[in-house]
């Protein structure tokens, strides 16, 4: 176990290192990095002063090492537009994004899992056909369109929920649903496959033979076994939710990290963009690692290198 763990952790660290390197060189690839940081109307003298002040006049290798060192200490530099450390900006926005992702996870899980179970148990019946059509529609629906439709119908026409912003508690309802819909489809698919796999197992047949009611077989025995793939997928879905938050936050004017990033791009505040992207990338890699470890904890065949 510890060898598998160490190996997987090492891979994750390599990936994080790789992402940091990619971002550093992407910045330089596009030409002069100072140009990313100064306002559009900066004079040549301003640019030169900035270059020296930021240390861009030194050899690239030294800049690279310094950048790696800073990033590892969660020092993402300063926002030159707002003149505060990037990490402070991230801290003020992070709770909102976490709240939104949490709400979306509740929606995705709460709807997706029952739908997936129904799809498997009632396979071929009209109810399953209807639900699978809805899942497919949910998958093909662009988040920003379903979000706008929700604002239109529930926010403007019916007036059930505030159309945007984060002033009231009920503000989180619509963004959560909009963000959760896409993951809902994923959860439904995974749950369906997992339950279908379990339905064919011997213990289900034994249950039938003993005369157990179907309800009891499903709730007492089958769902526990079927939960394994769902748990692993959850970790990966959280990463997707965090990424999807960029669009949903923009639609609903939700003051989270996604909105911060888009505002930073518009304001040419590159350090902020870089900070959020780095944080997001590291989180995603971390969640990938968690998913793999969870999986290996639950299913020892993975870490033994035996294919199931």
């Amino acid at each position: 176990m510890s060898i598998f763990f160490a190996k997987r952790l090492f891979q994750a660290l390599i990936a994080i290192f790789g992402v940091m390197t990619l971002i550093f060189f992407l910045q330089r690839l596009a030409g002069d990095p100072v140009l990313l940081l100064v306002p559009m109307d900066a004079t040549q003298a301003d640019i030169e002063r900035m270059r020296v002040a930021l240390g861009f006049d030194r050899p690239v290798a030294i800049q690279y090492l310094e950048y790696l060192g800073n990033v590892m200490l969660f020092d993402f530099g300063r926002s030159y537009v707002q003149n505060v450390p990037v990490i402070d900006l991230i801290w003020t926005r992070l709770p909102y994004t976490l709240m939104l992702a949490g709400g979306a996870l509740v929606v995705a899980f709460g709807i997706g899992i029952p739908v997936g179970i129904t799809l498997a148990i009632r396979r071929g019946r009209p109810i399953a056909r209807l639900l699978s059509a809805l899942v497919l529609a949910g998958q093909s629906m662009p988040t920003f369109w379903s979000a706008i439709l929700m604002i239109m119908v529930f926010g403007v026409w019916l007036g059930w929920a505030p159309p945007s912003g984060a002033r009231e508690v009920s503000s989180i309802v619509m963004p959560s649903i909009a963000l959760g819909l896409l993951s809902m489809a994923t959860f439904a698919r995974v749950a369906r496959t997992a339950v279908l796999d379990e339905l064919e197992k011997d213990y289900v047949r034994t249950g039938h033979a003993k005369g157990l009611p179907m309800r009891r077989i499903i709730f007492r025995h089958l769902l526990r076994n079927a939960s394994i793939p769902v748990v692993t997928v959850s970790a990966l879905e959280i990463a997707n939710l965090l990424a999807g938050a960029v669009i949903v936050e923009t639609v609903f004017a939700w003051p989270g990290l996604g909105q911060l990033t888009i505002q930073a791009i518009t304001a040419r505040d590159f350090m902020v963009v870089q900070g959020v992207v780095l944080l997001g990338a590291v989180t995603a890699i971390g969640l990938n690692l968690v998913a793999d470890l969870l999986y290996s904890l639950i299913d020892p065949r993975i870490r033994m290198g035996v294919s199931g």
Partner: protein
Amino acid sequence: MSAPSQKIAAVKSAKSFSLPWAVLPFLFIVGAMVILAIAAPLVAPVDPNTQNLLARLKSPGTVSRGVTYILGSDELGRDVLSRLIYGARVSLFVAFSSVILSGTIGSILGMVAAFYRGWVEIVIMRLVDIVLSVPAILFAIITVAVLGPGLINVVIVLALTRWPRYARVAYGQTLSVANMPYVRLSRFMGASWPRLLGRHILPNIAGSLVVVATLEFGLMVLFEAGLSFLGLGVQPPTASWGAMLSTGRNYVATAWWIATFPGLALFLLVLSINLIGDHVRDRLDPKAR
């Protein structure tokens, strides 16, 4: 593949070569959108960028100064239907070129990794893992922040972030084909590696790559729309469904048609492509069903 199974596959494909009735309506939708996009200047009622400030935010069906706004007009008095038709050009162009570009890069790198093994394999497949473990939108955001927004940059961003999907499939498939007797034989006979990969390996793995490409196509349409929606993609005044949705978002209370129609077009296109993709997968790769 052994001889009997090949025969069965051949019989099966010959027997099932009939019109795909189940996906025919969706093929029709995609086909219609492609034709409308190509013929945009001929079919669009008016120029998509012509403003008419006297006919701002007119509801669908309004006639103003001799122009009928079938799907209404936007905040600058431009015809929504014409912009919708021209927007199809952007969506399809970006999706098509990014799928071709990322598919080519990914397939070549995947095949090379599986064929050469050793450090080439390690470098390429590690890179695949890194890019795949980070949500594509993050890479897209940082790339746009560096390169700036624009049509061509969107294609570059999508090609740079999506190639690993193809690389992984090409890699796995090549591994299973590379040791086939006929590949080893042509290797012994001195075939060059481009010839080996292009003539002997690629034809055998192309089916799986086509499946990935079809499913990716729908995703690319969504990505372009998403980036344009965020203001990171196609820049105004060029008509793009994502950008139209972004404008429409500001007018949900007064002009529902601006956001509704591009969203509907996007939804129909992506749904149709996904259904066709599923169908293609079931046909070419029965095991993955």
